[in-house]
């Protein structure tokens, strides 16, 4: 099968899944005992806003129901919902008082930035430890690293994040030296938030000096802040590097929490995959040729052992987004996870649907990309 045929095929297979996700979210959001019509008018629901042709009064609540199509049968409502989705109208959030699309658009890069950086930690950590573990199979290092692999998988991520905060973020910085606070021997990473309070305070948690229409990833955007904007910033923050450093430091702990938690399973995958490859004939041939053990493992074995690791990249992204729900809550990042939690607490179901749809889309898309990558690396899968 040609590569483009493969991609087209995979895209077509995505359609039923996307439709299914839409149906599922729609169903769940209609089971939620929240009245969107009532939520929108709040305590003004009883106010009469107009009259029917027969002269009966129409309250704000009734008008809302009519406007939101809630008097239609479910199937029509679903049709309307899908049409609106297609037109880019994802509804209005009752918590944020903004269009859902905007809420999601602001939140998604935050989560993605965190998830990507976490995988950036998890993958090297997992792969390197996995390689050492496989090479030193059944020795002390192997046993210890396998134990830690299982232990990392077993850690409750929210608790681990708090422990990281406790250890690395409870110190205070006085005159350039990190001072442990109140007897806890903590370091000086920022404890929560996405930016230093002195940066975000003037604009109420919304760092507007980042260029409009930027990527939303502040690690990237920080390099594109114009000099005029930089000049408006508080003392000590007026350079692109400092902004970048600030973002990075704030991301460090949440990403470490997420990354270490997911490195455990990667270690296990890598170890198993490499062990399998090490028993292959061509590795034995490489050894027989008199290559150094290092070269055998790194050049010959690892290249093939890494292929299956690539395939779980898609799932790792999904897992990291799921884990972000917890880390974002702890580290006060307004990413999709926190938005989801908040919207669920306030029964704001357009947002719940939007977040669910967008996370599903990200997951499916990343899996698609991984599959295509895989097909490029290993042409055999295209035949499947």
């Amino acid at each position: 099968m040609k590569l483009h045929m493969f991609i087209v095929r995979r895209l077509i297979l995505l359609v039923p899944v996307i439709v299914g996700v839409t149906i599922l979210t729609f169903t769940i959001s209609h089971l939620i005992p929240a009245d969107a019509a009532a939520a929108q008018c709040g305590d003004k629901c009883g106010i009469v806003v107009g009259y029917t042709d027969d002269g009966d009064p129409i309250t704000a609540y009734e008008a809302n129901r009519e406007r939101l199509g809630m008097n239609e049968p479910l199937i029509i409502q679903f049709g309307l919902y899908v049409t609106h989705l297609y037109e880019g109208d994802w509804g209005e959030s009752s918590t944020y008082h903004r269009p859902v699309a905007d809420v999601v658009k602001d939140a998604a890069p935050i989560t993605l930035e965190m998830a990507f950086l976490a995988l950036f930690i998890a993958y090297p950590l997992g792969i390197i430890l996995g390689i050492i573990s496989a090479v030193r199979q059944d020795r002390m290092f192997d046993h210890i690293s396998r134990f830690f692999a299982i232990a990392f998988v077993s850690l409750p991520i929210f608790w681990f994040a708090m422990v990281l905060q406790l250890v690395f973020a409870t110190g205070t910085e006085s005159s350039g030296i990190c001072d442990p606070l109140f007897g806890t021997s903590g370091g000086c990473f920022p404890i929560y938030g996405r930016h230093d309070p002195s940066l975000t305070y003037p604009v109420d948690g919304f760092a507007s000096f980042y260029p409009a229409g930027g990527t939303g990833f502040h690690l990237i955007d920080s390099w594109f802040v114009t000099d005029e904007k930089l000049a408006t910033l508080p003392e000590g923050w007026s350079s692109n590097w400092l902004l970048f450093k600030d973002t990075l430091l704030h991301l460090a702990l949440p990403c470490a929490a997420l990354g270490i938690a997911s490195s455990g399973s990667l270690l296990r995958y890598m170890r198993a995959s490499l062990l399998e490859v090490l028993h292959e004939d061509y590795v034995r041939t490489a050894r027989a040729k008199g290559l150094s053990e290092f070269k055998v493992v790194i050049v010959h074995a690892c290249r093939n052992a890494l292929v299956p690791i690539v395939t779980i990249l898609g799932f790792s992204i999904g897992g990291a987004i799921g884990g972000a729900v917890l880390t974002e809550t702890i580290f006060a990042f307004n990413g999709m996870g926190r938005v989801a939690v908040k919207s669920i607490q306030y029964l704001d179901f357009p947002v719940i649907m939007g977040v669910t749809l967008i996370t599903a889309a990200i997951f499916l898309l990343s899996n698609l990309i991984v599959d295509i990558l895989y097909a490029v690396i290993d042409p055999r899968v295209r035949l499947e």
Partner: protein
Amino acid sequence: MRGWDEGEEDRKENLKRLTEAISQSGSDIWRSWRIYRRSLLAVVGLMLVLSVVTVSIFADDIAVEHPYRNLQDTQWLWTIDNEPQRAHPFSEECDWHEQSIYVDTRSPFFSETVVAVSDNKVGDDNKYYRDTLSVIELLSLKDNKGYDLNISWITIDPNNSSILILSEELYNNSSITDKVWLTYEFDNEAMHLSWMPDGYDVCIFGTTHQGQDLFSKVLYGSRVSLKIGITVALLTVTIGTIVGSVAGYFGGRVDEVIMRICDVFFAIPGLILAMAFVTAMSAITSLTIPLWLGILIPILFLAVVSRTYLTSTIPQENQLSSQVMGSLVRNRNIFLGLLVFFFFVGLIPGVSWSELFGLSESREWRLSAAIGIILLLGLIGLADKRFIEKSSFDGAGERVSKSLDWTNPWKYLTLRTVAVFVAAFYLFEFSGSTDDEIVVIKTFDRLWKIQAALIFTGWPGYARLIRGQVLYVKEMTFVEAAKSVGAPPGRIMFRHILPNAWAPLLVAFTLDIGGTILSASGLSFIGLGAAPGTAEWGLLVSDSRQFFVFDPHLMLFPGLAIAVTTLGFNLLGDGIRDVLDPKNRR
């Protein structure tokens, strides 16, 4: 019908086979254990799991607070006012009680009376009692603004150390407006951990922000977590196995549809989906199923059993008369069509299922109707277009009576018999119901909701796993061999395919208990899980968030409990994986 004496040989034979099977599985377990114990980590995992289970069983005996309380209302178990809040582990405060005592100086009724330690219980003599605490020493007395008062204004009743006597001076002191704060040391002998040496304070993990003993709370938390972990894992395994084996066995369209549904579930991060589902269920207070469904499920099950029973006992060449069977077969689609029709009619608003199916009739009517339906469905299922050609009753009766051999009770010791009895019991039970609904879970509380949500999000994983296994085993020759000797699909599934497909399932199940505990505590952490006040680990960590910088013990111990329990199950699962790995079998 055979007499009891004639069955002697068969009884012996079946008993022998039973004992053989037991000793066989015994030696299997022993061999597995020998492989298992090779791995230190696996043994550690088993130990961890066993100790968590032990702790949860004996929590009442180990916990220091309120051993007599009913565990059902854990919500209210811990609300004791004014105990030392956020006391650190082993700190001296732990065996102190701070107690506010209302002193109404304007009320003549309360003057001259004694005031007890607790505000929990009022006795007949208008005294306040607390059963378990007896006061040893009064430490300090403060007024509402925090100024020290004379401690001698309150004394301990020499006859009953649970009762404190307020003196005249206290009432007459003009600076006291309504209440005073008394700090006292209580006799912690009764509350002491029996296995701890004297001199230790009761709170080895410290106390929570509500002044409850954290150690006890963590202990009771193990019950909640284990309960959630095991229930969810069991139910997801069951659902996943059913769905997955249906998909794998039938293949084709069914498989395609089921797998696409699974894909949908995989596409949404589990935690977000579970959160949404918990919220969706927030209005449900008790889980009920409609009566017709409650009756229909045992009926369908019994019909399937009766069908397999009939096919396996009545030889097909001797089937019932061709006319009866023939008409049944020819009209099979009509029967099924009618069923489907009625099902959809029942869904129309305003049409009551009960009326439609005569469910308002008497129990006898319902029961006999149910049995009729069972037999009818069994016969329809049995009917096969091949034997329309054949007819005669010869030997059928004899075979039925032979297969119902009462002289050989051991042969009935099967899972199917148990299931039949359970189904029959529920059919009988529900047929007498006068309500339109059957209550499955009376109080569908938040714990149930997280369990439901985790089951809802968890089954596709198992379905996919078991489907793959079934597909793999289905292609093996012994399945074809079973077909070639005429084994029915049910037997092929349960005797041939599933027993050879369960190994990865067991591993996944064990690992999933740990995973479920993690997810459930995660849900509780973000406030969607256990109700506030419940002894749940995730909730304890969540509660500690405001204080954890200064009182890290609040978060460390419950978190460690989650980690250790999950680690135990994960190590156990890993060990089982090694045991089941064919490479390790010799």
